[in-house]
């Protein structure tokens, strides 16, 4: 059999059935153990949560168009920003990349059939839904006005639905732990023979580091949540100064989880960017080992810097000095990654596909987000900037400009793989551009407001800040339009899109070796293993009309050709 025939046989025909069509009915989704379907359900879920929390953001930005009350009372404003923050953090960003994209991509990247514990995976999704239901219950009852941080003693005093929201956070935490546990075991035990740690795609390093944080840090959130529940219901007196407790202790507990959680959000985003930059410039990633080690370094250091959220809280000077020093150490691995990405572009073969537009936009925005972290880590300047809009702008540049942009880039990158359809490239690029402009318009003025001294979480403000707020509000509308365009482009592709081949981008990682969408078993043949960034190991095949792995020349003897696995 010639090489051409082999290729034809392995990659030429899309199978009749794929994971989307192999079984039908809601039960086939709701009780599925297929990591791909669970990933898709997570994707739909987190997107809905994102849309909801995004609408809250638009409402509160609209209210801030004038310094005085327009349509939200103080209390309603407080509820609005709390729900925006809490839903974005707990229901959207934390599960977004690992649970939605990671679930879909991670096993296929390993050439595996599924994650190590498919049932645990489904349980994680059920817990996510249950936790979200508690949040929705909080939303329709008395809402929540504590800020997403639940700082005591206010969270003990307020009459809003702290208990149901905390229960939601508690349950969502376990959903996150299950996903992390699954990923750790899967990466450790299910790598194909020949894929050593340093032959893994960088996204897997990032997801692995993330999973370590999820498993180690999230229990602390659960404990904190339980203690706060006890405080509210039983009056334990651990955090409430009226009962002899210490509110600063709560902040320590809270940030002991929530700072590592920041890296649960950004690390997988960095992993995605490593993939996108490399694939869409068809160049081996620069400094693979430094990027891989920096993921682990960030995961470890993330546990040691929580106190930088508390520089003005009244903790001891010695602690504050130590936390400031440690905070600067996190800057190094983050900067290394950025340098490596830019170096990867050097002498590449760059195409501005939609995922690449998001990746470049990530480097720009994450650059601003990261660098504005420096005056916040520097103690003397932080005292002035702490709890102002400067901080709001900084973390939105990292969480939205970083994580959300990378998430969108990832969705566009793996969309053809998930649904077997190509979207309109022009439409996708337009969406990415408008998102980029809208984002900067929204959040850049907030840096200036913040350094001028506008405190965060203010329903009313001094008229001198109005011009910045107005630019920001207009920007948020532009951002909303950009996101709507992106969503429209993706949805339309499901009906109108051209059929995608197995490997539309010329990527060298394994998930692009199976067909799009993958079959229930992911691979119909044994995987052909090569370096995840060796783009010479794949070639364009006219007959297949897509990229396929370069197959070895057949020897005189009939070579051991990978046989198609019988599908059932």
């Amino acid at each position: 059999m010639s090489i051409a025939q082999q290729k034809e046989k392995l990659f030429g025909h899309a199978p009749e059935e794929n994971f989307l069509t192999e079984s039908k009915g809601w039960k086939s989704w709701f009780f599925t153990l297929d990591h791909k379907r669970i990933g898709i359900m997570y994707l739909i879920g987190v997107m809905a949560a994102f849309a909801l929390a995004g609408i809250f953001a638009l409402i509160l930005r609209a209210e801030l168009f004038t310094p005085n009350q327009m349509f939200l009372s103080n209390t309603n404003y407080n509820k609005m920003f709390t729900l925006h923050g809490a839903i974005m953090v707990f229901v959207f960003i934390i599960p977004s990349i690992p649970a939605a994209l990671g679930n879909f991509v991670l096993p296929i990247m390993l050439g595996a059939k599924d994650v190590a514990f498919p049932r645990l995976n489904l349980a994680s999704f059920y817990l996510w839904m249950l936790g979200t239901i508690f949040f929705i219950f909080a939303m329709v009852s008395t809402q929540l006005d504590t800020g997403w941080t639940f700082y005591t003693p206010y969270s003990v005093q307020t009459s809003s639905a702290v208990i149901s929201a905390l229960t939601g956070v508690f349950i969502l935490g376990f959903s996150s732990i299950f996903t992390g546990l699954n990923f750790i075991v899967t990466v450790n035990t299910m790598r194909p023979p020949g894929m050593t740690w340093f032959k893994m795609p960088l996204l897997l390093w990032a997801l692995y580091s993330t999973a370590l944080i999820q498993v180690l840090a999230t229990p602390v959130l659960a404990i904190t949540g339980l203690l706060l529940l006890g405080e509210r219901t039983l009056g334990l007196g651990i955090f409430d100064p009226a009962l002899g407790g210490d509110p600063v202790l709560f902040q320590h507990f809270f940030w002991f989880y929530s700072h590592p959680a920041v890296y649960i959000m950004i690390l997988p985003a960095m992993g995605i960017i490593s993939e996108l930059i490399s694939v869409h410039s068809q160049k081996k990633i620069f400094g693979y080992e430094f990027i891989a080690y920096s993921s682990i370094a960030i995961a470890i250091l993330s546990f040691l810097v929580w106190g930088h959220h508390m520089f003005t809280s009244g903790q001891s000077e010695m602690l504050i000095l130590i936390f400031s020093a440690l905070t600067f150490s996190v800057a190094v691995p983050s900067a290394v990654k950025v340098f490596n990405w830019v170096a990867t572009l050097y002498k590449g073969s760059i195409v501005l596909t939609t995922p690449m537009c998001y990746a470049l936009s990530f480097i720009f925005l994450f650059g601003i987000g990261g660098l504005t972290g420096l005056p916040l880590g520097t103690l003397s300047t932080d005292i002035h900037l702490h709890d102002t809009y400067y901080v709001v702008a900084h973390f939105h540049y990292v969480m939205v400009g970083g994580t959300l942009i990378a998430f969108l880039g990832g969705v566009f990158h793996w969309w053809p793989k998930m649904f077997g359809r190509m979207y309109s490239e022009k439409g996708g690029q337009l969406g990415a551009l408008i998102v980029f402009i809208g984002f900067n318009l929204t959040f850049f003025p907030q840096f200036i407001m913040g350094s001028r001294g506008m405190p965060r979480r203010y329903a009313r403000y001094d008229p001198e800040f109005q011009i910045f707020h107005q630019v920001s509000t207009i920007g948020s509308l532009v951002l909303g339009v950009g996101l709507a365009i992106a969503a429209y482009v993706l949805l339309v592709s499901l009906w109108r899109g051209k059929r995608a081949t197995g490997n539309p981008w010329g990527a060298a990682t394994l998930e692009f070796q199976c067909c799009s969408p993958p079959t229930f078993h992911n691979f119909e043949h044994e995987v052909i293993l090569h370096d995840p960034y060796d783009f010479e190991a794949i070639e364009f095949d006219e007959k297949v009309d897509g990229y396929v792995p370069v197959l070895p020349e057949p020897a005189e003897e009939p070579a051991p050709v990978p046989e198609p696995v019988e599908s059932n």
Partner: protein
Amino acid sequence: MVLFAQETSREGTFSFPLPASNFAADVDGMYAFIFWISLFFFVVINVCMFYFVYKYRRKDSRLPEKSPSHHMGIELAWTILPSFLLVYMFVVGAFGYLDMRTPPEAAAAVERTIDVKAFKYGWQFIYPNGDITTELHLAKDVPVRFRIKAEDALHSFFIREFRVKMDCVPGRFTECWVTPRMTRTPDETLNKDGSRGSLEPFHLACSEYCGEGHSQMRTEWKANPDGKTGSWAFPVYVHDCSFDELATFTNWKPQENSRWENGQFYFKAYGCVGCHNIEDGPQKVGPNFKAVNWGSNVMRQFEEGPDAPADDDYIRESINYSTKRVVKGYPNQMPKFNFDDEKLSYLIDFIKSPASDPNPTKVKDLKKETAKTTDSQSAEQ
């Protein structure tokens, strides 16, 4: 609804408010240093990125020409070299911070300590001589220490012109200090006719979220219903005088004023206005006292328990034991006060008639009058 409010005075540089304290120059200088370093790296990264994207855009062949994917020298360099800048930032920032948290002896002395009390939703300053106000008066070039406490929830004491910020934590004292370097007097912020002056006071703000009235805990112009006159809530003033002379700005002499005026003073000094409106206007956290009828024949309804008459004793209880009975429809958020009977009686007189003074006689004359009547009565007998 005014969409575009008239531009107010915006002082300071483009990105910072006025540098009005001993810390401001250091903080702003350090920020500028970090800013330029950051801008340098940002420009280098993005110029490279955009240049590469343009220069190496895909032309004909998919596979790029060979280039190294690893260079230990470069990678170690860009890992290690920026670290020196980071260490420098840490060290300078740490020394600046230790300055902010270590009051000099002159400020640490008891007679230079101002107690700051934050509560939902207002501020109160207690001076070494016992004066209590909601306005912060400081003297130029005189270091002062703030001993900060919170009544109820977390707050944060933030004066942007001073670059000073410290959380107010219930159940413990926190502290910070400052030496004001610029003056800002009430005359500059308030005209003789009661209208708004050309400048604003320095700005105090609560910067730790504390609930419904969080954004009311700031220096703000409160216009009267006539739209022209008004007053500043929680202003920060710096006078060109010695610290002891400051007392004249805050000394309140109850004897020299009527009972109602004393009540009005304490009502404002203790920050009651933060939550209780005393004229027509938006509903604040607590009941509007202009709208309430008082008297032993008027019944108040409560969240729990039977109705009770709104007499003087009820007002006393609501102030000193505020959480005991909460009026229906209002949150249980009022801080507990512990006023002596004299202050309480002044406050009650004012609360019962916030619009006008029913008896504008000075307290000291009031005593004489009472004495006179008693004298004449005894003479008649």
